[in-house]
């Protein structure tokens, strides 16, 4: 089953404001070879945009696990929880 189809099953109360920010977008292009965030995020929130030479962030699909924050050892991701009541809302848990 494709990840996109799985994410379609998840219930979100999407905030207008993003709760994720790449602190220094040029760092990912200049200094980060592996771009671990594009692989380890279970929801594939992070995608490398080859044209723009930066990480594109789809915060709307974030499952709020925190994997990106632990995985980016350069600490270039500013990730906090969405505002109260927003974000993922599990149906089963």
């Amino acid at each position, binding site marked *: *089953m494709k*990840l996109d189809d*799985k*994410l379609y*099953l*998840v219930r979100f*109360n999407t905030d207008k404001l993003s709760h994720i920010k790449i602190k220094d977008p040029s760092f990912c292009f200049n200094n980060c070879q*592996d771009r*671990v965030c594009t*692989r*380890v995020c*279970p*929801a*594939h929130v992070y995608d490398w945009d080859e044209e723009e030479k930066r990480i594109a962030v789809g915060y709307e699909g974030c*499952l*709020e*696990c*925190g*994997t990106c*924050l*632990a*995985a980016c*050892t350069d600490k270039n991701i500013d990730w*906090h*929880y969405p*505002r*109260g*009541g927003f*974000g*993922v*809302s*599990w*149906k*089963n*848990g």
Partner: protein
Amino acid sequence: MENFDVIVVGGGPAGLSAAISAAKAGMKTIVIERGNYPGTKNVMGGILYTKPTNMVVPDFWKEAPIERPIIEQRIAMLSGDQCVMASHRDPAWTTEPNAHSVLRVKFDRWLSQQAEKAGVMIIPETIVEDLLYRGDQVAGVRTGRGEGDLGAKIVIIAEGVNNFLAVKAGLAKPLHPHNVAVAVKEIITLPKEKIEDRFCLEEGQGATIELYGDSTAGIMGTGFIYTNKESISIGVGTLLQPLIQQKWTPNDLLEHFKAKPYVKRLLQGGETKEYLAHLIPEGGYTNLPKLYRQGVMVVGDTAMLMNSLNREGSNLAMISGMSAGEVAAQAISAGDTSEQMLAAYERKLRDSFVLKDLHHYRHMSKFFENNPHMLKIYPEIINHAAGMYLTVDGVPKKQRQKEILRMAFKRRSIPGIMKDIYGAWRALL
């Protein structure tokens, strides 16, 4: 600013247990929860242990929304399409349960209702952004709401594995790929008769299967399958560092696991209803945060209280929460919330299985970190050995046994095996 005796940050098993024990001791207690209600942000594999939960809410399982009492637990080693398995079954655990499968959205909501019955006020849809201090003493919390400062004599941090507040308070270190595992899971619905037939269960009984080895492509971790009433919880969890190194994505690893012949057949015809992800604190004893200081205690996942070898986490969370709630009540009643007074919380955990078990396994994470081959080579050896031993082809058994040993020593040298046994012995026994 409104004032309370105890403010608990986070409405999971640890936070709600803390709140229940504090409120029962007469403390004016609130739980601040970021979800719509406690449960909507909460995920675990799905096994809840009965006795520790009974300590928080006696006989909970007779009325709580649980899925199935677990009567059979299987452990398997996968290698390619092969599988070697051991299991324990005791139908007596249907009526004298040891563990249940649960779905956390339902269960945590129910637990929060028990907290409310005990006098706890739950404040949902609210983020705690920081702690408030009076000198060195923690004196409350700053929430994300307008005029959102709330005062407390004691704050209990039960914010879960993502330890933002504990880090800000100087109690914990930020998470690192070496000390967390990432787990993804699916809820797959199946009719209850199908579940019972496929897992050889009587009506209402439940089973668990943990699979090591190729279930996670040999990465340190497990694949798990738990039976719910009318669904299966299936997932994989691995340490983050080797997942990064071996360039797997969590969802690809889960699909790899689901495609295994043994697993595929259990899920056949089921429909995926939800896809979930969660981090698991795996730092172990040597990476425990500071558990308390003036006016604050840290419980559950935030305190890295996790025994993944024995699949225990929610029980450590509830016992730590309950202990912190009790200590908070004693300290407040005595009018002394100093660091010295709250040290009683850590003493309680040290006297209980919580820190005894973590201390017992203190060498485990280093051992597995330094020996990443363990779940690659041994599942292979065990499956090959079983396959060779069971092959009937006219080769005399004595010769076959020699061949098996040769096969094993080809994959891992005799000194290597000795070293692994010694290391595992030291780490696990």
